[in-house]
Each structure stands twice: as C-alpha cells, then as structure tokens.
C-alpha cells in the first residue's frame, strides 16, 4: 500500500503547485480543495483517521466555503485573472522560488542526515486523541476556544460595512449621517 501514499503525496504536491500558479481565484480554490483531500488521504494512511476527517470537514468543507464566499462577495472574475496574469511574471517569481528551493535543500540535508529507518505507522484512534485533548491539553482547548471567540467577535467587528473614512475626526459625523439615512429609509 505504499503506492497509495506516494500517489497521494504526488497529488498533494501537484495540486499545491497549481494553487500557487493559477490566475483565477476560483480555480486556485478548487486545486486547494484537491490538495486538502490529498492531505486527508495522507493522514488516513498515517493512521490518523480523526485528523483526516477533520481535514475534510473543516478545511475542505468550512474554510474553503468561507473563501468562496469572499471571492463571490468581491466579485472576482475575469478582470482579476487578467490582472494576475500581468502580475505573475518570470522575474517576479524566479527569485523567491530559488530562495524557497534553498530553504528546502537545507531542510533536505538536515532530514536525510538524521537517518531514521522505515516504520509502520501506528493507528491512533479518535478515542485516544479525545482523551489526550481533554486531559493533558485541556488548557490548550480552553485557549483555542477563547481564540475562536475572539476571532468571531473580531471578524464581526472588522467586517462591518463602513464608508471610506479619510480622517478619524470625521468618523462620528459620517456615522451620524448614516444613521439619518437609515432612518429615512425606514
């Protein structure tokens, strides 16, 4: 079954490559979804079935939907793709790619010099994960909850639709006008 692992890995790499090179945001998102599914496959093959499920449900499901919503909201279509094509020149990406290649090469050297043998991944059941999560890592769970709470509140606050405000002293007046406008509308 090693072949499944290598296929999944190859798919993940290729899909990721496509994500970072697409001009159209929707295409990129679809490739990212493929990449995430490949990740899920990898997790499963490594014996982490719980992680694989979470990857599919939350990443590929929830988070990607958020992205698609935003793309839709911003109405990113052909013009964006055109613009992306203009932006993504060889001279723009060759430098960073080389840099990342160097980084990867260093990583390669370090990993290969460690000399670990092959192994059979052990299955870690969701039960074990849950026990660990709610015993040893309880404080982490609490903190994650607080983080998510803060994120929800923050997103709701930041996402409020406001007009372009050029000067902070003008903000109050603008808001008052908005209120007046709303009142008239009602």
């Amino acid at each position, binding site marked *: *079954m*090693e072949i499944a*692992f290598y296929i999944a890995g190859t798919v*993940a*790499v290729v899909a*990721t*490559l496509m994500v*970072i090179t697409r001009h159209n*945001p929707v295409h*990129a998102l679809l490739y990212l979804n493929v990449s995430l599914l490949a990740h899920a496959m990898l*997790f499963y*093959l*490594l*014996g*982490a079935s*719980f*992680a694989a499920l979470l*990857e599919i449900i*939350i*990443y590929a499901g929830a*988070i990607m939907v*958020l*992205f698609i919503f935003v793309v839709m909201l*911003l109405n*990113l279509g052909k013009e*964006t793709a055109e*613009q*992306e094509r203009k*932006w*993504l020149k060889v001279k723009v990406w060759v430098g960073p*790619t080389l*840099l*990342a290649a160097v980084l*990867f090469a260093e*990583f*390669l050297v370090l990993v290969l010099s*460690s000399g*670990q043998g*092959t*192994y059979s*991944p*052990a*299955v*870690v059941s969701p039960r*074990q994960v849950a*026990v*660990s*999560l709610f015993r040893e*890592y309880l404080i*982490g769970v609490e903190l*994650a909850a607080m983080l*998510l709470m803060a*994120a*929800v509140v*923050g*997103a709701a606050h*930041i996402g409020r*639709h*406001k007009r*372009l405000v050029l000067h902070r002293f003008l903000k109050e007046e603008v808001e008052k006008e908005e209120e007046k406008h709303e009142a008239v509308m009602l």
Partner: protein
Amino acid sequence: MKPSVSIEVVVLLAGLLFALGIVGVIIRKNIIFMLLSVEIMLNASGLAFVAAGSRWGQPDGQVMFVFILAMAAAEVSIGLALILQIYHQHKSLDIDNLKEMNG
C-alpha cells in the same frame, strides 16, 4: 493495509509543501492568494505533526493538528474580514498598495 513508509519521506513531503506555500506567499500580489498559500503552509506543518505523532504512536500529533485547525479557522475568518475591508477602502487587493505602515 498500513504502508510502511520512511519518516524522512513524509517529513520531506511536508517540507516541500511548506516551501511551495512560502513561494506562494511571496510571489503573489493578490491578498486572497497569499491567504491561500498561508493555508497551504499551515497544512504542511499539520502534516509534519501528524506524521510525528504516527511515528511514535502518540495522540499528541493529532492534538496539535486540531489546534492548528482552530487557529486556521480563526485566522481565515479575521483575514477574510480584513480582505473585505481592504477591498472596500482601496478598491484593490494588491498587497503592494498597502504600504502605509512603512518606517
């Protein structure tokens, strides 16, 4: 049915994906693409955690993945809200337009 793979290969795969994520962050000017690339990097690190957890047969790797997931969710929600605001204020998603914070 479980494959016997070498840990190096898995970690190298994670490293490769991470490097691709970095490349994505750097070369794209569109903020949405940058955010997508950051997601790739998060996933790559998650893969490394899970691989390590499976190598030692411990649940900690998956626990870390769960935390990364929570963090990613929070980050995406905030990031997307910010993108919306930026688009409203600047009518553009070009990261190079957002240079007010220069020293």
